[in-house]
């Protein structure tokens, strides 16, 4: 590690800043103040990132569709989110007469709070983690799971058929995909031997011939990452798994009856959930804040973390611009009959990987098992449902 | 493809009680049509559809016509299997007021379902035996049948700056009803809108 002090300081700039600010306070206050500062940073940073992402998403989608996208507010439309924020703040807050007003009010708040809790354990750079819990992964999933409650509260309290259908879909979908999400992460835990996210990143922050030891570059890691990505998309209700909000079917799903700022909160909650879950994916499979090549380690770790985060956001947008959505029963079938078995096979492979020791044999063996399982299950399912390309005849 | 006369004799041979006459079309654009007595229409329709030589399995167009003394339903038949057509059959109601029933041909050709509803809606022909005879385009509870020639438009006044002829007359009667102040020409109503 040949780092000049300047880059080392740059790497640790936020940590140093926090220490410097806290040092003005009495020693007994220092830990609490430190935490508060970090919380404030997170609570400010991610909504700002959300604002930027909305404009990037709209512009990206527009470019995918050969349009220009928003370009009227500010240079390149960069201030569009500000205009949007003003709009949603000034809009009338409508609560349906028959709605359960208290629950209707609490649902978006609950969603935003639970979503932000996940960031507590995410390492966003070297030494940049709010609480380094030993069971960080467990805490994260516990928090993620409670956001389903908020969605259901929103759908139930609105007293709208579309909201209710949307909420039912959302809960069914999120619970189903929680399982593959967990199981694909378990493989990482098996290899690392720790639930602490900091330890998981440390384990990946090594290099051989200049190449990193990220888990995605192993057969089990790659398969796990794909399964994790699928589960993530479903968990955050993004296309092609955006059924709970499927516009052409359910108008807007569980937030049909929300307007103004409450709607903006839902929007915020969804995007921040997307950031946090991509952050976790980055941590588990893409080496967290570590650099992709050994000679690039001088670039500050937090830059790497956020670059990887934005890259995965871009993939989300790209998929949204390309894919149609699945149907509810197909989505469930896909979760339970394809993703879950694949995750179980992957666990087996991860175990094999660990116990086969070094050597090329384990690469061949593990890859073969995974490819066979993937192709077998995929082809079998396609054949069972009689799906596939067709040929057409012509009349004379 | 048989001529209209041959079809007529074929129908008479197959459905002896049928009363079929040829309604001439003075224009060569479309063959003469067959006027069928409503009582036997269903049997004739079934024959036309199932007869091995005719196979008029596709009912393309169903429409109503408002004649001065009766209402009429016109059916345009084609054959998808034999690729021939059209054969036009028509049915008359007894009058335009109280005896406006005709048998529905929806049991024979499903494509008549919406089109007969439309005729019921716009012309007021009641199709007996139609599985779901409701208004199609106008709303439930609407009175009268707008496509009839004696239909009187309701007095739903709409401001029109260039009102002339009929519209102006209507505007004036409406204004007379609503206010005491009649309008003379179109420009005069500008302030009132």
């Amino acid at each position, binding site marked *: 590690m040949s780092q000049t002090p300047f880059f080392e300081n740059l790497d640790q700039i936020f940590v140093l800043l926090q220490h410097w600010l806290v040092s003005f306070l009495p020693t007994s206050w220092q830990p609490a103040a430190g935490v508060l500062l970090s919380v404030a940073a997170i609570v400010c940073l991610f909504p700002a990132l959300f604002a930027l992402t909305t404009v990037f998403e709209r512009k990206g989608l527009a470019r995918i569709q050969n*349009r*220009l996208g928003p370009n009227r507010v500010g240079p390149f439309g960069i201030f569009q989110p500000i205009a949007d924020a003003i709009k949603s703040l000034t809009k009338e807050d409508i609560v349906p007469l028959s709605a359960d007003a208290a629950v209707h009010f609490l649902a978006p708040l609950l969603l935003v709070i639970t979503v932000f809790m996940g960031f507590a354990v995410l390492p966003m750079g070297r030494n940049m983690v709010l609480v380094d819990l030993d069971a960080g992964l467990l805490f994260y999933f516990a928090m993620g799971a409670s956001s389903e409650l908020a969605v259901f509260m929103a759908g139930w309290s609105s007293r709208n058929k579309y909201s209710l259908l949307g909420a039912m879909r959302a809960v069914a979908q999120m619970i189903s995909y929680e399982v593959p999400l967990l199981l694909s992460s378990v493989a990482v835990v098996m290899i690392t031997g720790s639930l602490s996210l900091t330890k998981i990143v440390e384990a990946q922050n090594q290099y051989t011939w200049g190449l990193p030891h990220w888990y995605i570059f192993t057969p089990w890691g790659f398969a796990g990452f794909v399964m994790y990505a699928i589960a993530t998309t479903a968990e955050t209700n993004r296309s092609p798994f955006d059924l709970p909000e499927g516009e052409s079917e359910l108008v807007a799903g569980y937030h049909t009856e929300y307007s103004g700022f409450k709607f903006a909160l839902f929007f915020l909650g969804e995007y921040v959930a997307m950031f946090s879950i991509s952050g976790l994916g980055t941590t588990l499979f893409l080496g967290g804040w570590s650099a992709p090549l050994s000679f690039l380690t001088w670039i500050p770790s937090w830059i790497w973390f956020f670059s990887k985060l934005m890259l995965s956001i871009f993939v989300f947008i790209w998929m949204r611009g390309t894919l149609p959505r699945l149907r509810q029963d197909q989505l469930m079938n896909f979760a339970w009959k394809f993703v879950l078995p694949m995750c179980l096979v992957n666990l087996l492979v991860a175990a094999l990987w660990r116990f086969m020791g070094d050597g090329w044999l384990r690469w061949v063996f593990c890859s073969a098992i995974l490819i066979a399982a993937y192709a077998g299950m995929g082809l079998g399912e*396609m054949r069972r449902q009689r799906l596939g390309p067709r040929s057409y005849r012509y009349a004379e | 493809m048989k001529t209209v006369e041959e079809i007529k004799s074929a129908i008479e041979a197959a459905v002896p009680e049928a009363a079929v006459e040829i309604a001439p079309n003075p224009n060569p654009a479309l063959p003469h049509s067959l006027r069928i007595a409503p009582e036997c229409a269903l049997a004739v329709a079934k024959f036309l559809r199932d007869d091995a030589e005719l196979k008029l399995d596709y009912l393309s167009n169903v429409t109503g016509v408002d004649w001065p003394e009766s209402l009429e339903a016109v059916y345009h038949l084609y054959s998808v299997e034999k690729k021939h057509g059209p054969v036009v059959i028509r049915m008359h109601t007894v009058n335009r007021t109280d005896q406006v029933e005709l048998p529905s041909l929806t049991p024979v050709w499903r494509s008549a379902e919406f089109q007969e509803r439309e005729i019921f809606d716009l012309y007021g022909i009641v199709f007996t035996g139609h599985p779901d005879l409701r208004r199609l385009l106008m709303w439930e509870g609407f009175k009268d049948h707008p496509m009839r020639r004696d239909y009187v438009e309701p007095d739903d006044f709409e401001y029109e*700056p*260039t009102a002339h002829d009929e519209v102006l007359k209507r505007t004036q009667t409406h204004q007379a009803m609503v206010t005491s102040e009649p309008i003379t020409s*179109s420009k005069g109503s500008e302030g009132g809108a």
Partner: protein
Amino acid sequence: MLGEGILKGMAETAKNFFGSYFSAERLTTVEYPEQRIAPYEAARVFPFLVFDGSDWEAGMRCVACQICEKECPPKCIFIEKSKDKKPDALGKQQFYPARFDIDISVCMSCQICVEVCPFEAIKMDTEYELSTDNRFGGLLLDRRQLAKSNQYYHQIHPAEADGVDARLAAEKAKADAKTKITAEAKTAAIAGEGA
């Protein structure tokens, strides 16, 4: 079968994403208030009345025959015929429209008035920025607002206007010849009478 269809689709959208930065073929958007496309010569928006010369009232070709009023599908034209007659471009005594209104909130730009007009008096404009804050009065154009010069017509539909001018000139020549013949006949008759 196993996701390659999805990947193929993703590749296609990626191609379009990057392509939209380089190829004008892909990015066809025109940013309207700043950029404008010149209207095609055949473009038609709302009708206007053509006048010859510089005085719009004297040069108006319309003779208030009311054919367009009758043929107009949505009935948006309103004409009041004059009581007196005025000489038209050919010098013939003609009626003229005392009032000629077009309600462009009703007009559907079908161009049938132009086709049925025997006097080449009504043509289609290409001006499309016509929004106004007066819903009724602002969209009801009277004959002053409708009158546009023949030069303007040449400017917006050059080829069509040339054809129209040629046709009118031919008609005028024919009419002149006719008047000349009748005049000659008259003088001949007078001469004959005298003899």
